[in-house]
């Protein structure tokens, strides 16, 4: 069936009743009232009779073997019920099948300050805390590896943090080449070769992670947790607890902020579950703010070398990107993160010849993972600054050089990503016009500047985390003969408005008021699987699954109603809780009457919809990271004032345009854009998750500099500039009602736009974030000395990236495989060869239709 909005809006139909349009109009989010009245129950708000409290004991050394854990005095402390150690949970886990390198409690080795070693459960949190202080852990120190250089310089077995990965302390190496770079570089009018560094940062959700494990009858367990990925957590619990998944129920409580930080299964969740099973009573664990910093999984610090050939017109002819990711102590999503630092480089601007080398290393620091934009803000920072430099070199306007490079819509990129609609040109036009960029860039007084940058992002990862051919999202509808409809879906609300999207889509298709749609979400006992709130997948995938389920229901109702009303089913319109004849709106019945009619004919009306992303054309090892049903686009202009005597930067205003496809709810869409700008500005100017080391000859200690809301500089109301947002609506056929993502993409242009604006203001390049005042001053000082007017990294390490996979591009007549990979040759004859899900190409399967 066609898009219902368009159908209703078609000429000649003009129903007397105004159709209950939900999609595209602003509405109060379905969880709005609960959230403003304090009624929303977050994980730590839950309480159960006989509930006990768990406190983790964490490593106080960065790298060591555990010699002994003495819990005797903790066990003897008042109120203590049990103490758990690694031996109680020996099964490893990890979000990616290829990186099963975590233990709920460390077995014999700790890998960073904050690694969980033991757990104390007591009748009160006070008692658990006191007793946890009494647990004595004896360590034998191992050398601390805290930098990319140190990780690369420790190749021997006895120096390794883990015994998996690509040798030594290298977790993952990637080397891919698409097309021949030589002609582009040979003929270039300009070759830029730049080093960039993007510092790590963390999500800092206001809600500290929390979980409550409740043992149920007959070896069953319910775990309530603040998680973005209840399905993956469900699998990890089954794996580590050795319990059938059918006996475990995971309920994702409303999540008080995620941003990627609650996408891994975590130690505290598993340990609480184990403790609850052991004690036969509910166990709650709520992390302290400091522990949230140790969970991390935040932005990878990435060092980059970007070498690009430009022709005289400013068009990029060839590009070689090298990245080095500081991964921290565990794998987490790191394999995917590594690929992501290269995969989306081709989605905004056309690149016919592209080489990407990436390496991720293990270090004794809290593990990095996916943070809003997952692996892509770092190379985006480099690319957008380099374009700015190229524009200056070639005498072009920064907007113009981008417009000349735009990736064409609905094409396949050199690295085999299929692009959908592309609203970037309109985005650039909007922000350039709004900020009067062309009139003002390069012409403002010293100290004031404008910077432009763009970005593109996934609307859902094309492949799931673990290897399967199943739908990535599913929705069921149960129509109630008393009125209304119950929608069930495993999606998890993390504040982005996923519940509201789900309800709106169903309400739209069935012509129901939002209030008649009841949701049951994120409960593995009751709701069909959705993979979770990550990779900006929910609106598109849940939306499409919901449309399918709702359209099936509408078809059943329309058939029955058509008979009763004696009208062709095709002429029926579902609007404002009624089913009516578009030609004669007087002929109608209520939605509930239609349910009666349909249920009488078919029995219970329950329908299901599911969504599987379309097959991606790439077939080479690594082609699984990057594909998406479509991509969102964003452009931003930022105006700054830079004080040349202090280096302090004041962001005056942000203009941002986002190609949303179609806004399901414009007010929530704007909120996502503004929130992304905020988080981007935090990374650009304030926030950094870095370790502090003590003088080596005195101590091997390596601790996070900031483990509090005071030391970690999340911007306040007073630090946030005005934001002018333009929503560019260019409906994409891949999205529900044309919608694309908005949760992550708008973050991408922010940091490079700030750096570009600083250049426009005071003429120095800050090639790393955060752009701190002392760096600006250092660059200004350098300029005065006659040195390059720049602050940033000075060297890129020598890395052996291994053999480069050579993948002919579509233009070269390739078939999506590498010509020098035996796996590709084998796969042509055989399914299920080695490698990770991320590395495998998608098998042929259909989308929603």
């Amino acid at each position, binding site marked *: 069936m066609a898009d219902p909005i368009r159908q209703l809006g078609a000429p000649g139909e003009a129903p007397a009743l105004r159709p209950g349009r939900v999609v595209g109009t602003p509405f109060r989010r379905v969880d709005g009232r609960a959230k403003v009245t304090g009624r929303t129950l977050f994980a*730590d708000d839950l309480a159960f009779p006989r509930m006990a409290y768990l406190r983790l004991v964490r490593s*106080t050394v960065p790298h060591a073997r555990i010699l002994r854990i003495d819990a005797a005095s903790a066990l003897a402390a008042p109120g203590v019920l049990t103490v758990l150690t690694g031996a109680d949970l020996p099964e490893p886990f990890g979000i990616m099948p290829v990186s099963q390198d975590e233990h709920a409690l460390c077995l014999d080795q700790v890998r960073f300050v904050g690694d969980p070693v033991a757990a104390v459960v007591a009748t009160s949190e006070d008692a658990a805390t006191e007793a946890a202080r009494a647990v004595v852990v004896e360590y034998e120190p191992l050398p601390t590896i805290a930098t990319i250089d140190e990780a690369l310089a420790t190749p021997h077995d006895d120096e390794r943090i883990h015994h998996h990965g690509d040798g030594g302390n290298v977790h993952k190496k990637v080397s891919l080449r698409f097309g021949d770079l030589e002609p582009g570089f040979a003929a270039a009018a300009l070759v830029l070769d730049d080093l960039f560094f993007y510092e790590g940062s963390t999500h800092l959700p206001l809600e500290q992670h929390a979980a409550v494990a409740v043992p149920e009858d007959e070896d069953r367990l319910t775990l309530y947790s603040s998680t973005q990925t209840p399905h993956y957590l469900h699998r990890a619990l089954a794996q580590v607890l050795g319990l059938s998944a059918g006996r475990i129920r995971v309920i994702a409580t409303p999540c008080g902020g995620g941003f990627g930080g609650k996408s891994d299964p975590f130690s505290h969740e598993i340990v609480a579950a184990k403790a609850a099973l052991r004690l036969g009573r509910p166990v709650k664990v709520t992390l302290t703010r400091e522990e949230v910093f140790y969970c991390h999984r935040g932005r990878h610090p990435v060092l980059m070398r970007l070498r690009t050939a430009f022709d005289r017109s400013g068009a990029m002819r060839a590009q070689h990107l090298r990245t080095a990711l500081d991964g921290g102590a565990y794998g987490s999503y790191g394999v995917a993160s590594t690929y992501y630092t290269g995969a989306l480089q081709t989605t905004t601007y056309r690149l016919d010849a592209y080489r990407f080398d990436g390496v991720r290393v293990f270090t004794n620091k809290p593990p990095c993972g996916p943070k809003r934009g997952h692996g892509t803000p770092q190379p985006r920072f480099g690319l957008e600054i380099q374009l700015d430099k190229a524009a200056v070199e070639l005498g072009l306007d920064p907007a113009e050089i981008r417009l000349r490079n735009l990736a064409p819509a609905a094409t396949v990129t050199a690295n085999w990503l299929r692009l959908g609609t592309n609203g970037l040109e309109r985005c650039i036009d909007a922000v350039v016009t709004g900020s009067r960029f062309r009139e003002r860039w390069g012409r403002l007084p010293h100290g004031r500047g404008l910077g432009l940058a763009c970005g593109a992002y996934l609307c859902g990862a094309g492949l799931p985390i673990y290897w399967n051919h199943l739908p990535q999202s599913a929705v069921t509808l149960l129509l109630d003969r008393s009125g209304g409809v119950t929608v069930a879906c495993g999606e998890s609300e993390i504040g982005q408005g996923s519940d509201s999207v789900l309800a709106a889509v169903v309400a739209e298709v069935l012509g129901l008021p939002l209030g008649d749609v009841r949701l049951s979400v994120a409960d593995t006992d009751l709701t069909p699987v959705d993979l979770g709130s990550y990779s900006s997948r929910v609106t598109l995938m849940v939306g499409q699954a919901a449309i399918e389920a709702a359209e099936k229901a509408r078809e059943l109702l329309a058939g029955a109603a058509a008979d009763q009303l004696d009208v062709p089913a095709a002429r029926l319109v579902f609007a404002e809780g009624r089913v009516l004849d578009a030609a004669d709106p007087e002929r109608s019945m209520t939605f509930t009457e239609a349910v009666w009619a349909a249920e009488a004919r078919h029995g219970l009306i329950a329908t299901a919809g599911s969504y599987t992303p379309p097959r991606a054309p790439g077939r080479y090892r690594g082609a699984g990271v990057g594909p998406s049903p479509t991509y969102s686009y964003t452009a931003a202009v930022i105006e700054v004032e830079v004080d040349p005597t202090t280096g302090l930067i004041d962001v005056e205003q942000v203009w941002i345009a986002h190609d949303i496809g179609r806004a399901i709810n414009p007010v929530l869409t704007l909120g996502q854009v503004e929130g992304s700008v905020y988080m981007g500005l935090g990374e650009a100017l304030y926030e950094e998750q870095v370790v502090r080391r003590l003088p080596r000859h005195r101590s091997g200690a390596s601790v996070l500099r900031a483990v509090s*809301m005071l030391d970690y*500089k999340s911007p*306040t109301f007073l630090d946030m500039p005005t934001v002018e947002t333009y929503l560019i609506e260019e409906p994409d056929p891949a999205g529900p009602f044309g919608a694309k993502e908005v949760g992550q993409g708008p973050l991408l242009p922010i940091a490079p736009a700030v750096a570009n604006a600083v250049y426009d203001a005071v003429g120095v390049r800050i090639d790393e974030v955060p752009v701190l005042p002392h760096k600006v*001053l250092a660059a200004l000082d350098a300029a005065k000395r006659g040195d390059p007017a720049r602050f940033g990294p000075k060297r890129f390490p020598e890395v052996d990236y291994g053999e480069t996979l050579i993948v002919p591009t579509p233009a070269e007549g390739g078939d999506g495989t590498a010509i020098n990979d035996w796996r590709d040759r084998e796969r042509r004859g055989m399914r299920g060869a080695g490698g990770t899900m991320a590395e495998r190409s998608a098998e042929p399967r259909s989308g929603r239709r």
Partner: protein
Amino acid sequence: MLRLPPFTFRRPATLDEACALLAGEGAGEGRPVRVVAGGTDLWPNLKRRQEEAATVVSLMGITGLDGIGNGGANPGAGAHAGDRDGPTGSAAGELCIGATTTLDRVAASPVLRASYPALADAAAGISTVALRNMGTLGGNLCLNTRCTYFGQSEDWRCSIDYCMKEKGEVCWVAPSSDRCWAISASDAAPVLAALGARVRLVSCAGERAIPIAELYRDDGIEWLAKRPDEILAEVLLPAASAAGGRCRTAFRKLRRRGSIDFAALTVAAAVWTGDSGVVERASLWLGSVASSPLQARDAESSLVGRRLDPETIAEAARLCRREATPLDNADFTAQWRSRMVEVWAADALRALVRFPS
């Protein structure tokens, strides 16, 4: 949730009672008795196990220990009103601020706004609205010294084998040094020092009023000259006109964010000028750059006898930078903070010129 360790809590109704509790059995020995007012410093420190307390004595139940007033009219006189005429009582025209006066009241006080705007500004810039509604002037003056190696959780500090401010051996800010370099982070202290304020300390043994500059010691560990059994009861500000000439004051603070953050640097300036506009007396104090408020004596001298013209200001600011040695124990890099001393000092001095006549 991060929680407080258990303690016994006392909420005396009079200052005498409070003093008795501090002098009581076991006080000062192993079982520390601690005084709390707004709690915005002590509670976090106890939660992080940076400090300990067997008994906590709250001053917030003491009637009359808060308020802003002149001399005898001061509600802060409280239980000790009778002592006011004694040697430590307020001098004529002195303005008295009770120790438990919350920072929001200091910031909003019309009297202070009119006569000592730098103090009101300093109070208004401390942390956040909610914290200023709780935190007190006395508490701000007694603030424990801060350091990025110390202001962390117990586990974190264990990870670095602690530091000499507690059970550790070294000062990680300057490992070869034999002292603790934790910094005085009170925003009110440098302003009150610049204004020549005094504090009244009360104990069972009697009371004394000392210049605020003498309240502080250049030592991150023993930062207060106040004895543990003494309670800082009130702040005594000299009359605005006491020193003759016109007094102008300014306060400037550097921090990363618009709120929440402690200062990375503060500058408090007071100058007294005659009718000719020539500086007769100058008082320049820097905060958050040393273990106590730091008097920029050379800069002060450079101002006396001159007008506050750009050249004079620039020279005094340069001298300020020379006199302060920020270390790497607060936000931003130490080197950058050092450069900013000059910029911020110049800014504060320029603000004095713009002071409305």
